[in-house]
C-alpha cells in the first residue's frame, strides 16, 4: 500500500461555508482615496451576498488540505490514455508569470505589446513547422474547441465554393466522443465507420460512404488504440477523391513530432493540444489550448485574429517606419469568425512556447521516440498479465482488455480502483468503446523505466489478488481519502451547491 495522502481517511474537509464566521475576511482592501459618490437607486442593488467569511490562515489551510486529497503528476505516475500526462516543466510556470507578459491587457495598442505578438507569431511558425501546415490560429482554447474550429473551417470551405450539399462528417468508431459531438454542434451529420481487425479504419466501409455529400473525415492518428493507420495513403485518397477534407484530431500528436508531419501525410486541418503534447499543465481540467493548423487552401478560413509579421521596408506595411519588423493582429479574409474573446489562452501559449524553445528539433523528436519506446516497453512488460487489444507495434499508447483470464468477475473498474492502493493513477477506462473492458495506457516519455516496471509489477500482483481475493478488488480503493462514491445517488438526487449545514 504505497499511496500517500497527507490527511487520508482523517475525516472530511469541511465545505468552506462551514468554516465561515461573520466578521472574518482573508484579504485587505485599500482605503478610499476619492470622495464617495451617491450609490444608484436601491432597486438596482442587492442587500447581501451569501459568501463565506474566513480568515487568511483558515483559507490557506482549507485549500492546502483539499490539495492533499488530489492525485497529480507531481505526486506519481498518471498513465491516462489519450491525456498525455507528462511532466509539466517548472520553467514554463516562471515564464508565464513574468509580469511583462502577465500584466498586459488584450486591447492595448499592438505597438505596446510587441513582445506578446512576437511570441505568438514565433509559436505559430513553430507549430506550422512541426506539423507541416501553412497556417495556424492560436485562438481555440481546448482540444474540443479546436475540433469545433476545424469542422467549421471545413464547412466554410465547401460553402465558399457553393458546394452546399456537403453535410456529412465521417467519424471512425474508435474516435473520441468529442468528434461526433463537435459535428453535431456544427450542424452537420455524423456517419460512423467501423474499424477493421487490425485496428485501422475499415477501407471498404469507408469507400461505401464516400461521395459528394461528404464534408470530411475526422481521423485520430495514431488512433485511440495507439495504432498508426496502416492504410493512411488509401484513406486520404478516398476522402480527397470524393471532394472531402481530412481533419486530424491532434490529441495523439505526442507520437509524431519529428516522426511525421500531418500536413505532409495529407491532413488538411488539425488541432494541437498544447496541454498534452507541449507540456502545459492540465490544471484539474483546464485551462488548455487547442490551436488549429491548416493546409494552404484553408488558411483564409482560420479564426482570428492571428498574428502577422510585417517588414517595414516592404510595400503594404502601414507602420510608417523605415526599417525593422512589426507584428500585427489580422483577421483572415474568409474567416469563420472569432471562436472566443481576444486571441487565445495566452498564458498557456507562453508555456508551450517555452517548452518548444527548451527542446528544439532534436528534443521534440526525442520526446516522440521515447513516448513510443515507453509504451511498447510497458506493453511488453504486461505480456501474459492483461491481453493487449491488437498485436501490433504501438505508438505512444496501447489498450488492454481489463479482465484477468483467471478472474472473470473482476472488471476494468476494479483493477483501476485497486491501482490507486498501489500508488498509481488508473489508466483511462472503458474507452475506446470498441474494446470491451478497455484500459488505455499512455505512459509518456517523462516516466522512467523503474516507474514502468513498478506499474507492470503492480498489475501482475493485482492479477494474483483478483484470483485469490476478488472482494479486495471489488471494494478498492482502500487507502484513498474516500471509498467508492455513490454516483447513482449523485445523479438521481443532485446536490450541486452547498445548501446549509
Amino acid at each position, binding site marked *: 500500500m504505497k499511496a500517500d495522502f497527507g490527511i487520508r481517511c482523517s475525516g472530511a474537509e469541511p465545505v468552506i461555508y462551514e468554516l465561515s464566521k461573520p466578521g472574518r475576511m482573508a484579504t485587505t482592501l485599500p482605503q478610499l482615496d476619492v470622495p464617495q459618490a451617491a450609490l444608484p437607486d436601491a432597486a438596482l442593488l442587492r442587500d447581501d451576498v451569501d459568501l463565506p467569511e474566513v480568515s487568511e490562515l483558515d483559507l490557506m489551510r482549507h485549500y492546502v488540505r483539499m490539495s492533499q486529497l488530489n492525485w497529480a503528476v507531481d505526486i506519481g505516475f498518471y498513465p491516462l490514455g489519450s491525456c498525455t500526462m507528462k511532466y509539466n516543466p517548472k520553467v514554463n510556470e516562471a515564464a508565464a508569470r513574468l509580469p511583462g*507578459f502577465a500584466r498586459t491587457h488584450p486591447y492595448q495598442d499592438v505597438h505596446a505589446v510587441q513582445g506578446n505578438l512576437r511570441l505568438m507569431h514565433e509559436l505559430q511558425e513553430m507549430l506550422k513547422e512541426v506539423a507541416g501546415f501553412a497556417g495556424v490560429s492560436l485562438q481555440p482554447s481546448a482540444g474540443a474547441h479546436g475540433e469545433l474550429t476545424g469542422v467549421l473551417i471545413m464547412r466554410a470551405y465547401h460553402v465558399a465554393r457553393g458546394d452546399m450539399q456537403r453535410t456529412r462528417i465521417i467519424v471512425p468508431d474508435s474516435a473520441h466522443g468529442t468528434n461526433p459531438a463537435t459535428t453535431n*454542434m456544427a450542424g452537420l451529420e455524423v456517419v460512423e465507420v467501423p474499424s477493421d481487425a487490425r485496428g485501422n479504419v475499415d477501407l471498404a466501409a469507408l469507400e461505401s460512404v464516400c461521395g459528394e455529400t461528404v464534408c470530411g473525415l475526422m481521423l485520430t492518428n495514431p488512433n485511440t488504440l495507439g495504432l498508426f493507420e496502416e492504410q493512411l495513403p488509401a484513406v486520404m485518397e478516398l476522402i480527397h477523391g470524393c471532394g472531402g477534407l481530412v481533419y486530424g484530431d491532434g490529441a495523439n500528436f505526442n507520437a509524431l513530432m519529428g516522426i511525421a508531419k500531418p500536413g505532409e501525410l495529407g491532413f488538411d486541418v488539425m488541432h494541437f493540444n498544447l496541454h498534452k503534447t507541449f507540456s502545459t499543465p492540465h490544471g*484539474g481540467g483546464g485551462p488548455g489550448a487547442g490551436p488549429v493548423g491548416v493546409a494552404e487552401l484553408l488558411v483564409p478560413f482560420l479564426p482570428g485574429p492571428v498574428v502577422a509579421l510585417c517588414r517595414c521596408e516592404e510595400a503594404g506595411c502601414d507602420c510608417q517606419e523605415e526599417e525593422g519588423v512589426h507584428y500585427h493582429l489580422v483577421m483572415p479574409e474568409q474567416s469563420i469568425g472569432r471562436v472566443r474573446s481576444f486571441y487565445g489562452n*495566452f498564458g498557456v501559449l507562453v508555456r508551450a512556447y517555452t517548452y518548444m524553445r527548451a527542446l528544439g*528539433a532534436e528534443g521534440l523528436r*526525442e520526446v516522440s521516440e521515447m513516448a513510443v*519506446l515507453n509504451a511498447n516497453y510497458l506493453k511488453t512488460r504486461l505480456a501474459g498479465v492483461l491481453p493487449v487489444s491488437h498485436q501490433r507495434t504501438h505508438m505512444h499508447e496501447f489498450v488492454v482488455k481489463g479482465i484477468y483470464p483467471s478472474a472473470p468477475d473482476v472488471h476494468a473498474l476494479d483493477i483501476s480502483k485497486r491501482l490507486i492502493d498501489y500508488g498509481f493513477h488508473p489508466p483511462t477506462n472503458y474507452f475506446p468503446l470498441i474494446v470491451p473492458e478497455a484500459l488505455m495506457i499512455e505512459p509518456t516519455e517523462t516516466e522512467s523505466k523503474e516507474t514502468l516496471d513498478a506499474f507492470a509489477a503492480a498489475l501482475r500482483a493485482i492479477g494474483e489478488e483478483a484470483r485469490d481475493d476478488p472482494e479486495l478488488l471489488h471494494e478498492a480503493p482502500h487507502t484513498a481519502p*474516500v471509498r467508492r462514491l455513490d454516483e447513482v445517488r449523485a445523479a438521481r438526487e443532485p446536490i450541486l451547491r*452547498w445548501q446549509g449545514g
Partner: protein
Amino acid sequence: MSYVPHTDADRAEMLAAIGVERVEDLFHDVPASSRFPELRLPEPLSEMELMAELEAMSEENMDVGHYPSFLGAGAYNHYVPSLVDQIISRSEFYTAYTPYQPEISQGTLQSIFEYQSMICALTGMEVANASHYDGATATAEAVIMALNVARGRRKKVVMSPAVHPEYRAVVRTYTQGVGLQIVGDEVGSRSLHDVASLVDGDTACLIVQTPNFFGQIEDLSGLAEQIHAAKAMLIVVVDPISLGLLKPPGDDDADIVVGEGQSLGNGLNYGGPYLGIFACREKDMRKMAGRLVGQTVDADGKRGFTLTLSTREQHIRRERATSNICTNQALCALAAGVHLAALGRKGLRLLAELCYHKAHYAAAQIDALPDYEVLAARPFLKEFVVRCPVPVSEVNDYLLAEWGITGGYDLGRDYEHLAGHMLVCVTEVVPRGDIDALVEALAEVAEEVGR
C-alpha cells in the same frame, strides 16, 4: 533537454525487451516517404538562456504595472491577492487531470463544488457549472442551451447591441452551421426596450448584458416576464465584481446567467486564460453544457464529491451531447473561488464600491473638462463612455507617448454612432493620482491635438 529520464543503458534494455534493435524500428507503420522529416526550429536553450530571452521579450511590452491603464471592455485589472497564486501554484491542483477518479480527486472536486456554490450565491441562480473557456463562449453555449430547451423548434435569437461585440461575434461563429436568425444588434444604438420588443413566438432567447458593454447598469425589472410570455429564455451576461453591489439577475428571473470570471482572481494575461461563468435554473440543468460536481456519499456513508449528470456529455452521449466541451478552465475557477472566499460577504461589496466611487470621481473630473462629455444617461459602476474632441486613437497615442498612460477603449471600432467615444475603466488598482494625471493629460490632448 527533453525531460526524458532514460540513460543509454535503459534504452538498450528496453529495446532488447521489445525485441527491436533501434528506436527507429518502432515507426515502420509510418509511410517511409514521410518518415523522420527535418524540423527547422531554433536551437534548444538552457533554462537560464531561455528565461533571459523571455524576460527580454516580456519587457518589450508596456505592461499595466508600469503604464497606468484605463482599459476594461471585458478584461479587468483587479488586484489578485497573493494567496491566490500560492494556492493555484500547488502541484496537487495544477498538475492534476479532470477529476474522473473521484476517490483521488476530492480536492479538485470539492473546490469546484464550492466554486459552483459561490457562483450560485453571486448570481442568484440555482445551478452553476464548473466553467467554460471565457465569457464569450459561455454566452454562445447559453444560446445553444436555449435552442435545445426549445427542442430546436425556435430559430431566432435576439441580442442587445450593448452585449460585448466579441461575445456577439462568437455566438455567430458557434451557430453558423445551424441556420439561425440573429437579430437585435444591427442597430448599435438600440435600447434594451426596443431590443426586447423583437422577441416573438419563434425566439429562443434574448441576450442582454449588465453592466452592459458601455458600463451602464441595465434595469431588468419586468423584462423576464415579457420574455417568458413569449416562452423564450432570458440570458444575462454579468461582471462578477459588480454583483457585490448590484441585484443578482436571479432576482429578476433570468433563465441563464453567464459572464467573464477573469475579474475574480485571474490576471489580465493578454486575454487568456479566462473563465466562463455559467449558471441556470434547476429545471433546465439537464440541458446545460459543461462539467458539474455533485455531493454524494462513499461506501462508508461519508460525504464526498463526484462529477455528475454526465449523461449530458460527449464521452457518453456522443453526437447527442449538449456540447462537445470537456476541458474547461478548472484552475481559473479555483482562482476565482479562492478570491471570492478571501473577499467574502463584506469584501466583495467593498471592492465593488471602491470601483464605483473611483470611476465616478474620474467621470466627474473628465466631464468637467470643457472639451469632453461623459454620457451618463444610465447609472454605471466601473466603466463609462466619454465623448472626446479628437479621434480616440489620437487621444490614446498622445496619452501613451507623452504621459505613459494607456487610455480607454475606442468604441468607434465596433459602433459607428460612437466614433470619437472612449470607454474608460477605473478599478480599485488605480490610485487617485493616476486619475488626476489622466484628467490633466486629457485636457492637454484637447489643447495640443485638437488645435
